[in-house]
C-alpha cells in the first residue's frame, strides 16, 4: 500500500480512490511492493536555505501547473503554498495502479527570517518550484565595527 503524499480536502474523492486502490491491490496481489517509495507525510516536500541577502525555498510539485498554484506570504514570514493536482482525463481508461497523490493541498511554513514580500521571485521548472525571497532590511546581518582599544 502506498503512503498518502498529502491529505486532500476532497475527502469523498479520496475515499473512492482508496477503495479503488484496495480493489486493485486485491486483483493484482502478486505485485511486489518494495517499500522503497518515500512515505512522505507532507506535500509538497520542501527545501529551505539561506544566503546573506535571500531566503530560498524549493518545492517538488510534479504535475502542478503555474495556474493551479497559489503562493502567499503572510506577516513577512509565513509562506503558504496552495494548489491542486488533477487526474488526467482519459475517457474510458481503466486505472491499474495509483501511487501519485491527487487533489488539493495546502502547506504553510515559517521562514527563518522576515522577508520583503513585495520582491519575491518564483520559478516553476520541470515540476520544481524555486522561490527567492529577499530578506527584510531589518533581518539582514549587519557588520559591527569593533574598535581596537
Amino acid at each position, binding site marked *: 500500500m502506498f503512503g498518502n503524499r498529502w491529505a486532500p480536502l476532497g475527502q469523498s474523492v479520496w475515499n473512492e480512490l482508496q477503495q479503488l486502490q484496495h480493489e486493485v491491490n486485491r486483483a493484482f496481489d502478486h505485485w511486489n511492493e518494495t517499500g522503497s517509495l*518515500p512515505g512522505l507525510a507532507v506535500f509538497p*516536500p520542501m527545501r529551505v536555505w539561506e544566503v546573506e541577502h535571500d531566503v530560498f525555498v*524549493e518545492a*517538488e510539485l*510534479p*504535475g502542478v501547473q503555474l495556474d493551479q498554484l497559489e503562493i502567499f506570504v503572510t506577516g513577512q514570514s509565513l509562506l503558504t503554498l496552495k494548489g491542486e493536482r488533477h487526474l488526467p482525463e482519459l475517457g*474510458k481508461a481503466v486505472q491499474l495502479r495509483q501511487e501519485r497523490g491527487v487533489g488539493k493541498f495546502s502547506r504553510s511554513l515559517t521562514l527563518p527570517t522576515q522577508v520583503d514580500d513585495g520582491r519575491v521571485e518564483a520559478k516553476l521548472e520541470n*515540476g520544481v518550484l524555486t522561490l527567492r525571497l529577499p530578506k527584510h532590511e531589518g533581518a539582514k546581518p549587519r557588520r559591527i565595527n569593533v574598535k581596537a582599544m
Partner: protein
Amino acid sequence: MTETMPKPNEAARKKTFTPRVDIYETEHDLLLFADMPGVDPNEIELHYERGELRLTGKVKPRSQVGHLVLSEYDLGDFQRSFQIRELIDATRIEAEYKNGVLKISLPKAEAVKPKRVAVKVQ
C-alpha cells in the same frame, strides 16, 4: 504490468529514487505517468526489451549554496522497471515529459486488440 526489481549493484549506486507511477489501460494502449521532478528532459531514457520497460531520468544539478534550514528530500536520479505481459508494439512507444511528469504511451500490438467477431445467422 508487473514491477521488476533492480539488481543489487544497480541499487547500491549513488542515490536513485523510485518514481511514483499511475498506470491506465485503454482499448488501444497502456499509459504510464511517472512523477520525476527536476529531471533534465534530455537525460530521460526508455528501454524496452523482451517485455521489460525500464525508465531512467537523470536529475538536473541544482545549486543550493548557503545555510540549509530545512531539507525534506534529496536530489537523485529516477529509475524503475516493469514487466509488461500485454503484447506491445515497441516501434510505436511514445513518451513526453511535462511539468516534471513523464507520460509513456505503450500501444498494444494489433494481435491483442479486441476484434469484433461476425456471427453468422443461421
